[in-house]
C-alpha cells in the first residue's frame, strides 16, 4: 500500500453525501474510494459514498462542513455555530455542529468571553450538536470552573442519546446539570 502524505488535497475540493440507497459497483468518479485510489491509497471498492464537485453547496451539512476545513486551516471554523441569547438572567449559548479538537477552541473563546463580560449563569444548548469529544468536554469543564469561581452556574441542554452517552461514560452527568429543554434549564418550564 502506497502512502499519501502531506495535505489531504483529495478532500479539499469535495463535498460529500452518503448515497446508501444506490450502492456503486465501482467507485464513483470523485468518491472517496476513487480519490483515495488516485492519490495512491487502496480502499474498499464497496464504499458507498459519493462526492460532489459543486462549490460549497452542502447537501449534507455534517459532511459538507469538511470541505471548509483544509481550505482555511487556521480560522473559518464554519462548522461550529454559536449563538448567544439572554433568557432572564441566563446567557444561553446555542451550539450547532461538531465539537472536536478543531472547533473546541472557538467554543472555549466564546465561553471565556461571556464569563469575562459578567455572564455567570450560562446554559449551553447542545441540541444542535452532532459530535462531541474529549476536547469539547474539557472546554465545558473549564467553563464550569470559571463560572463556579464567580458563584455562577453552567448547565447543559441535551436529549440526544449519542451525546448523553459521552457524559455518562466519563461520569460527567454527576458534574453538570443536564436539562431536556432551555426552558427547563432557565426555570421557565411549567
Amino acid at each position, binding site marked *: 500500500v502506497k502512502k499519501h502524505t502531506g495535505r*489531504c488535497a483529495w478532500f479539499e475540493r469535495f463535498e460529500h453525501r452518503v448515497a446508501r440507497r444506490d450502492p456503486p459497483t465501482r467507485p464513483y468518479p470523485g468518491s472517496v474510494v476513487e480519490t483515495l485510489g488516485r492519490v495512491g491509497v487502496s480502499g474498499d471498492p464497496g464504499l458507498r459514498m459519493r462526492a460532489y464537485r459543486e462549490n460549497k453547496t452542502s447537501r449534507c451539512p455534517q459532511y459538507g462542513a469538511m470541505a471548509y476545513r483544509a481550505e482555511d486551516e487556521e480560522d473559518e471554523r464554519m462548522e461550529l455555530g454559536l449563538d448567544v441569547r439572554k433568557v432572564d438572567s441566563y446567557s444561553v449559548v446555542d451550539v450547532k455542529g461538531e465539537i472536536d479538537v478543531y472547533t473546541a477552541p472557538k467554543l472555549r473563546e466564546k465561553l471565556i468571553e461571556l464569563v469575562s463580560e459578567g455572564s455567570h449563569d450560562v446554559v449551553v444548548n447542545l441540541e444542535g450538536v452532532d459530535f462531541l469529544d474529549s476536547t469539547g468536554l474539557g472546554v465545558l469543564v473549564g467553563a464550569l470552573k470559571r463560572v463556579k469561581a464567580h458563584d455562577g452556574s453552567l448547565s447543559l441542554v441535551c436529549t440526544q442519546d449519542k451525546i448523553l452517552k*459521552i457524559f455518562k461514560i466519563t461520569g460527567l452527568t454527576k458534574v453538570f446539570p443536564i436539562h431536556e429543554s432551555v426552558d427547563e434549564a432557565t426555570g421557565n418550564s411549567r
Partner: protein
Amino acid sequence: MVELEIPPRSAYVGVVRLALASLGRSLDLDDEAVDDLKIAVSEACTNAVLSNEAAGGDHPVSVKWIQESGRVVVEVADRGDIYDRRGDDDSLSGGGIGARVTMSVAMLSSLVDDFEISPRPGGGSCARLVFPL
C-alpha cells in the same frame, strides 16, 4: 487494509473521522456503531495530534483500517508524547496524564471491544482499537 497519513494538525482529525465512518457504513454497521466508531477514532487521532504537537514534531499520524473476520482493527500511530497536558483546558488531576487524556481513555475503553495503547520503538505510541462486526 486502508492506510491514511495525516499531518499532525487538528483540522485533519475530522477527515479521518469522516473517511472511517464511511468505511464503517460500507460494512453495514448500524448508526450507533458508526457513532461509536467516529468517537473512538476521533479520540485516538486527537490524542495523536495533540501529543505530536506537544513533542514539537511534525511527524505524520498514521491510521490503519484492518478488516479481519468478524472485526475491524484500527491502529493510530504517532511520534508524540501522550503525557503532555496540551489540550487540557483546565487540569483536574494533580499529576500523571492530563484530564482530557483521562476522559479520552475512559471513552475509548468503553466504546471499543478492545483498546490498548503501547509505546513504539523510536518514540511515540500506537493506539489499537478493535470493533466487532
